[in-house]
């Protein structure tokens, strides 16, 4: 029985649209007539978002030598698109904050997602990519399809997890076998629903099968490898017990030397705890 991942999204009121503030920020960033002050003003209207963004840009993720006190300055220094991308990541996390924890430990889920995002950002930094925040966001959103599956198909999700526990199979392969699609496809469909950039959508959809990426092969490869590293580091838990197979072409594509892996893990260790504290909305006890 093949079901379309888009079916999962119908009637999902909670996630039918991104928070208004994000849409306004995004529109302003894309509008060539907007000034940095305009963008700063819009962000500042949401005080909790502003506070979170300021904490993030002042953290070990950026290592700026002096403190950034205002949003406008943050936009100037970090960049409009980059700050927009960080705002996106934090907005999405906030949306899912109220999710039930029956099947999935949300703390562990975001630990893995943020871990993947941080790792991807570090790899992108090494490659001197112009906007590394884009990789942070893609990493953070790569498994978001799992949250939807758990919400809308709880029984089947449970069955899939149980099956993996006894058979030792990879969860994303069991998803395809049992549902006809995997969490990557669901995630991609959700990002499309939110009208997010095609690059984000393709990266999320193809993160387990990077060879399928047509336009954004490099970005997809980075997230794919970051995900493998995050699993090897056992950062949190998104449901997958095992390290997913590494696509050799994706590895070649990102062009990272073998010796850099150890360094990457060290940097992730240094950044992840602060990142989690700042990016996650107040965790429930």
């Amino acid at each position, binding site marked *: 029985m093949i079901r379309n991942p888009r079916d999962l999204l119908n009637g999902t009121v909670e996630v039918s649209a991104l928070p208004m503030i994000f849409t306004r920020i995004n529109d302003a960033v894309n509008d060539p007539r907007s000034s940095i002050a305009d963008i700063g003003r819009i962000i500042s209207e949401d005080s909790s978002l502003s506070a979170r963004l300021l904490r993030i840009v002042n953290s070990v993720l950026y290592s700026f030598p002096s403190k950034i006190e205002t949003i406008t300055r943050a936009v100037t220094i970090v960049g409009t698109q980059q700050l927009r991308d960080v705002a996106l990541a934090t907005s999405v996390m906030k949306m899912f904050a109220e999710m039930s924890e029956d099947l999935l430990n949300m703390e562990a889920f975001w630990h893995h997602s943020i871990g993947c995002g941080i790792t991807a950002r570090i790899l992108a930094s090494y490659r001197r990519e112009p906007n590394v925040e884009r990789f942070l966001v893609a990493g953070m959103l790569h498994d978001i399809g799992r949250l939807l599956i758990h919400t809308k198909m709880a029984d089947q999700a449970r069955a899939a997890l149980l099956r993996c526990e006894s058979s030792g199979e990879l969860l994303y392969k069991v998803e395809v076998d049992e549902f006809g699609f995997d969490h990557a496809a669901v995630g991609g469909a959700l990002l499309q629903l939110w009208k997010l950039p095609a690059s984000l959508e393709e990266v999320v959809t193809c993160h387990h099968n990077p060879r399928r990426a047509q336009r954004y092969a490099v970005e997809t490869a980075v997230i794919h490898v970051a995900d493998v590293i995050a699993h090897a580091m056992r950062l949190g838990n998104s449901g997958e017990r095992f390290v997913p*197979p590494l696509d050799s072409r994706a590895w070649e594509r990102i062009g990272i030397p073998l010796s850099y892996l150890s360094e990457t893990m060290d940097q992730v260790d240094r950044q992840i705890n602060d990142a989690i504290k700042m990016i996650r909305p107040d965790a429930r006890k």
Partner: protein
Amino acid sequence: MGKMSLEDVQPGMILAGEVKERGGCVLLSAGVEITEKHLDIFRKWGVSEADIQGVSKQDVIPLASLQLDPALLQQAEVQAQELFRHTDLQHLAVRELFRLSILRLAQDKSGAQDL
């Protein structure tokens, strides 16, 4: 001449190569003797390693693996094998991730033991 992790760099060591922050700006040139103040600055800028004169990579033995109990390493390897069962350990990058994973698992166990 070898790259050392910043944690192992001591004041008095001489730089063999310039230290740059992630964006590419040079913080300190080669040939300069490192002071505690320099180390503070490096940390602030997120620098994680430096090229030091007179040190070769072989000299900087990772302290971590020396201090680990072989029994723990053994346990860690078994755990890692399970974790990596769906991967191709023949691939060099996977192999390296596997190796690092064992070290981290053993370190975790070692840390837990000390508590």
